[in-house]
């Protein structure tokens, strides 16, 4: 025993211990059932996305590519990416529309997941390359990139996986980075004046609703909201430091924030909201399983009656 101790590495020093703790946190395992649930949700969302939410990309099939302004990733990193001609737009659209529901079942997760990621990435290049870049998809795009790395996962599987843990942690970090770095961007581009400026008035005048137009008459509310938004965004990383009991409430607060934003200025951040479910125990929500259980028990209740009927 003494020999072993003598030969063993010296007790880890402070930085190593913190490093180890960080790695344990980064790879904190999650059940495979959660992977299956997030996959289903994510890939089903793509159907809604290409049909409704990002239909502006599909509209580009008629817009001449002369109006296409390639992003750096297209120009520098992947110069071989084709300009969004009608054929390119249609390939992405139909590819995503057909493959996503299949991927939602969970079959061929690596192959289908990778193909969908590539198609969706191109879809996003089309969507963002005509003069406007949206900012609500970073975490969703990252989810599409890392979900294929986990491999097979079945609904209801309680097996814990570190690989899945890493993927989920990355998605979560991307969700929170979207908030935290958004505050940073506001301070970088807008400066501290953003807090007491009229950015929100601007947003409401351009895309306000009956839920928000009344706010225009109360400048103090506009300013309070702006301070509230930045405070919330800067404080969002707190979610990584709260315990399991409080975390769902923080996530609920995030969802309420987006609900209010949507009511006020019709910006929904829908893909981001899907990625945010990575903070929740989504594997417990199993509508198909419940339906199956309900049908089975209903059948059992009916069958004895049938049996008596036959006997009578």
């Amino acid at each position, binding site marked *: 025993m003494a020999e072993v101790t003598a030969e063993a590495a010296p007790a880890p020093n402070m930085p190593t211990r913190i490093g180890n703790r960080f790695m344990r946190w*980064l790879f904190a395992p999650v059940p495979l059932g959660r992977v299956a649930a997030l996959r289903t949700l994510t890939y089903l969302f793509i159907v809604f996305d290409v049909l409704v939410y990002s239909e*502006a990309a599909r*509209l*580009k*099939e*008629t*817009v*001449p590519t*002369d*109006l296409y*302004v390639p*992003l*750096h*990733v297209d120009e520098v990193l992947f110069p071989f990416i084709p300009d969004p001609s009608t054929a390119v737009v249609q390939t992405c659209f139909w590819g995503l529309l057909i493959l996503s529901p299949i991927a939602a079942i969970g079959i061929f997760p690596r192959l289908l997941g990778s193909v969908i990621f590539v198609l969706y990435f191109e879809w*996003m*290049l089309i969507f*963002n390359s*005509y*003069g*406007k*870049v949206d*900012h*609500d*998809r*970073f975490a969703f*795009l*990252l989810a599409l990139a890392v979900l294929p790395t986990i491999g097979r996962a079945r609904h209801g599987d309680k097996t814990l996986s570190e690989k899945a843990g*890493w993927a989920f942690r*990355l998605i979560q*970090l*991307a969700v929170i*980075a*979207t908030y935290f*770095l*958004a505050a*940073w*961007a*506001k301070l*970088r*581009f*807008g*400066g501290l*004046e*953003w807090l007491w*400026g*009229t*950015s*929100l*008035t*601007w*947003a409401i*005048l*351009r895309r306000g609703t009956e839920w928000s137009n009344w706010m*225009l*008459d109360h*400048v103090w509310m*506009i300013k309070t909201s702006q301070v509230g938004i930045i405070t919330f965004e800067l404080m969002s990383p707190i979610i990584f430091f709260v315990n399991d009991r409080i975390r769902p409430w923080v996530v609920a607060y995030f969802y309420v924030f987006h609900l209010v934003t949507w009511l006020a200025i019709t*910006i929904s951040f829908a893909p981001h909201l899907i990625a945010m479910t990575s903070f929740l125990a989504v594997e417990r929500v199993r509508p198909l399983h419940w339906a199956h259980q309900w049908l089975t028990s209903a059948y059992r209740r009916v069958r004895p009656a049938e049996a008596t009927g036959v006997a009578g």
Partner: protein
Amino acid sequence: MITLVLAAGVFYGTLWGDDDDFPIGPFRMYSTSRELDEPVGDTQMYAVNADGEEFQFTQTYTGMRRAELEGQLDKFEADPSRLHYLADSYATRYPDRPPIDQIRIVIEWIELDNGLPTGESTVEEVVSWQR
């Protein structure tokens, strides 16, 4: 390792990058600050067809979102003939309708006084094109 590269990329994007750097650009939604008396601009596009009918030339007709028009406004101003691409897009989308002869982009400037909309607005024509 992948984690670190991703994190470095996103921090780089937020600190020094811009929208061109998608997907690692800064998350700059409504990030510019506005003065309390600065008018708010609402960009609108109108088209006149061969029958002389004028109508608002929206995303459904052109395939271009308002924010996209605004993002490319300087290019349209520099070369108004670029607007004909939108007429082309309309012709592809609605082959049976009369073709577009004129397009103009205007900005409606909604006046603010100390953060309150005054109810007044001025319309400024930014660029126009005629076939």
